[in-house]
């Protein structure tokens, strides 16, 4: 059951990602991106990362994609159906570079995911026990507010800087 769901979500994610790249209309691209993000959230649920799946839907598919949509509407690009693919040498070079990196990635990551490696890792049982003891959010929150608290506070400062920077850059007169 889990395997079948995984393959369905994976197919939707890959199909959506292809349509993001080869869709002419930016709004269409954006909606396919939302489909990809939602199916990735489904895969997160299959890997027992329920909190991250919720965050993925709320923050990514909700907030960030709406921000993109606002910018497309603000710049009035919704009727932009022109083809804007790179042609000629650029296209060949892009496919060559992408193909090379695809080969390396599939080779390396495929090698990392063999069943021998999977046996050597601690395995899902340890994670299941952690979630059983501390709950799904508790198991993330406890390290986040103890071991990683400095990084967590720095992320808050980063968000403040991004907020001020975005307003300062997008303001009409500086």
């Amino acid at each position, binding site marked *: 059951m889990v395997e079948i769901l995984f393959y369905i979500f994976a197919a939707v994610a890959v199909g959506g990602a292809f349509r993001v*790249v080869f869709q002419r209309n930016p709004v269409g691209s954006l909606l396919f991106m939302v489909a990809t993000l939602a199916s990735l959230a489904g895969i997160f649920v*299959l890997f027992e990362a329920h909190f991250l799946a919720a965050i993925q839907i709320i923050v990514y598919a909700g907030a960030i994609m709406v921000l993109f949509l606002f910018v497309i509407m603000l710049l009035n690009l919704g009727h932009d159906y022109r083809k804007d693919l790179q042609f000629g040498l650029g296209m060949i*070079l892009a496919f060559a570079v992408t193909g090379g990196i695809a080969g390396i990635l599939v080779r390396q990551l495929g090698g990392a995911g063999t069943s021998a490696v999977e046996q050597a890792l*601690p395995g899902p049982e340890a*994670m299941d026990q952690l979630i059983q003891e501390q709950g799904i959010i508790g198991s993330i929150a406890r390290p986040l507010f103890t071991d990683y608290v400095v990084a967590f506070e720095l992320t808050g400062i980063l*968000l403040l800087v991004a907020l001020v*920077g975005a307003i300062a850059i997008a303001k009409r007169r500086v």
Partner: protein
Amino acid sequence: MLAEALILSAILFVIGMLGVLVRRNVIIMFLCIELMLNAVNLSFVALSRFIGIEGQIYVFFVMTVAAAEAAVGLAIIISIFRHYETVDVNNFNLLKW
């Protein structure tokens, strides 16, 4: 299921990179960068199922950085659009030699 998830993440990363290299619309290129970040998030989550909770914490930080990056990047796109009246990167050639 670990191998399948890692290969899916590799495929999504490569599609995102193809988008950055092939498209000329700067908003779509930016969207493809988000796609690449998501592919990496997927591999973090898949490995965290087998190794420990730390992977999910890194995903949390990656998402925050992606949100900050989207806000600043889109602000830059808006201010470039005001200047050139286009979002096609072929027209942004001020630094081109």
